[in-house]
């Protein structure tokens, strides 16, 4: 089923496609960033495609990507090699998963986004569900979605600095809202706990 979608996509938008692949039965299409909105619009409106149901938006940060034990001779996918500063490969990949209610097929769109210019066109105008999903991706990865109606943090608070799901954000770097040293002394702890 996935091959059919990819073939149709290739026939209609050959110029917008960077590459196509299938992994574990999931169809994946790499789309050029400037054509993403056009391709997505077509995917939603074309009756043979009819990707009416949005599934999710997320992002992959390739900063620490060093795959091990990759089977010889099998390319994992176009960006399989380690990401480095010098290689010039885009650090982020924005991932859109789509589903068609009528045809039951699924498709994953990917869009490579460089670190210094981390923005993609927003697809929330096509699928309202992507409004919050894109906000989440912005919150976690700092990807700016152009033309998004309401791009602000969703899980974290406004005071939070940085984007926690980026690989260079340390897992335990907390940014407390309530300062701990303002606290009243806890007599129970001072007393040493104790039971009965």
């Amino acid at each position, binding site marked *: 089923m996935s091959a059919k979608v990819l073939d149709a996509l290739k026939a209609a938008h050959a110029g917008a496609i960077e590459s196509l692949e299938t*992994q*574990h039965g*999931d169809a*994946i299409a790499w789309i050029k960033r400037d054509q993403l909105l056009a391709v997505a619009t077509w995917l939603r409106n074309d009756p043979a495609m009819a990707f*009416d*149901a*949005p*599934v*999710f938006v*997320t992002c*992959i*940060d390739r900063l*620490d*990507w*060093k*795959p*091990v*034990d*990759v*089977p010889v001779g099998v390319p*994992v*996918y176009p960006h*399989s090699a380690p990401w480095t500063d010098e290689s010039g490969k885009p650090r982020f990949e924005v*991932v859109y*998963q789509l589903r068609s*209610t009528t045809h*039951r097929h699924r498709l*994953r769109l990917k869009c490579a986004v460089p670190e210094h210019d981390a923005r993609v066109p927003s697809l929330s105008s096509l*699928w*309202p*569900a992507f*409004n*919050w*999903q894109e906000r*989440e991706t912005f919150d*976690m990865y700092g990807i700016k979605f152009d033309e998004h109606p309401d791009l602000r*943090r*969703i*899980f*974290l*608070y406004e005071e939070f600095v940085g984007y*926690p*799901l980026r690989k260079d954000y340390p*897992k335990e770097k907390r940014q407390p809202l309530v300062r701990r040293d303002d606290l009243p002394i806890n007599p129970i702890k001072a007393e040493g706990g104790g039971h009965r």
Partner: protein
Amino acid sequence: MAAPSIPDASGRSLKQLVLGRKDVQDLSDTEQELAPDLMTVNMGPSHPAMHGTVRIVLTVDGERVVAGDVQPGYLHRCFEKESEHATFTQVFPYTDRLNYVSPMINNCGWAMVAEKLMGLTNEIPKRAEYIRVIVSEMSRMTDHLTCIGASAMELGAFAVFLFFLKAREWMYELLEKVSGARLTHSYVRIGGVGKDLPDNFHADLTLCLDQTVKVLAEGEGLLNNNKIFRDRMAGIGAMSRADAIATGCVGPIARAAGLDYDVRKDYPYSVYPEVEFDVPVGTTGDCYDRYLVRIEELKQSIRILRQCLAQIPDGPVMVNDHRVALPPKQATYNTIESMIRHFKHIMDGIRVPAGEAYAFVEGGNGELGFYVVADGTGRPYKAYVRSPSFVHLSTAAQLIHGHLIADVVPIFGMINMIGGECDK
């Protein structure tokens, strides 16, 4: 603060243009007594009638909600970041705590994505698959029982809450016998399940189901034609089928809106093709339909469970593959080979080949998916959870629009937003 009222060419005030509501001079006498300004009301993040913790900043016109800014994130426990620092097996406890009302289904979803990446999807022993379906359906029942019970309580039907909680308690005790934990089971493993069903499980579950049927009848008797309940639910928070599709709604909410989408039927996994069940579909998409769909799903779950009990074969519950299966304890303690394998599995994690996959199951709230990028080590390079609650909550602002403040409660109850899953 009064909203600015700058008349435009048509003579209508800015407020009227923006809000579509009557201007002050058009109001009747009684209406005029109310303050004409919009008021901001804060609900949450710790509000008694909110499942989980979410904050809504309501803009109200009298009692009527004209806008709501829904702010999730108060239970953002960083599932994805934690997963990136844990082995594939260690992620199971984190998945338990995503949708903590139906943890077994989350376990299954996580196991399935790892199995998909390892090419094990079709290798899982039949008995393990049946056990997974059994515990998933039991989890789905606890989910729906909690959702309906809590929502009914919020509308004043405390007895129903107690009845349904009683039934849920039976399920918990049974699941505790199966997995060892009442709530956070971590029972499913990559390649099968942790251990076989306990002795007497068939009889216990059959008894439990028989009793649950009675409890359901009791609960339905109290709710279905209850005037208060119907008045509070029917016509409230309605959603059209088209909206349900476009906003990504799945599960009972989408089905109540007439969208016939159930992962168990549309993208069958595990042994669901081998059991018979129906997918209830509503018509109006309002809270009452959501309630009815959930009640019907409870009955269908019972039906599935009875079939599974009849069909479940004997056999192993773990795939015989050294990449994922732990060696038996006896061998681990006595041979260096098994010791090393056990050690590698636990300390380095199950090594999942590099690649990416998206696997999804029908969770208590609909399509629950895991999108995982693996880099060949024992941990996921990236683990994204497609949580239905998050998607459903994003529609909340639209659903509560135009309803009374009091209606926010049943709407939220029936969206069944689960903090752990929604905020990840």
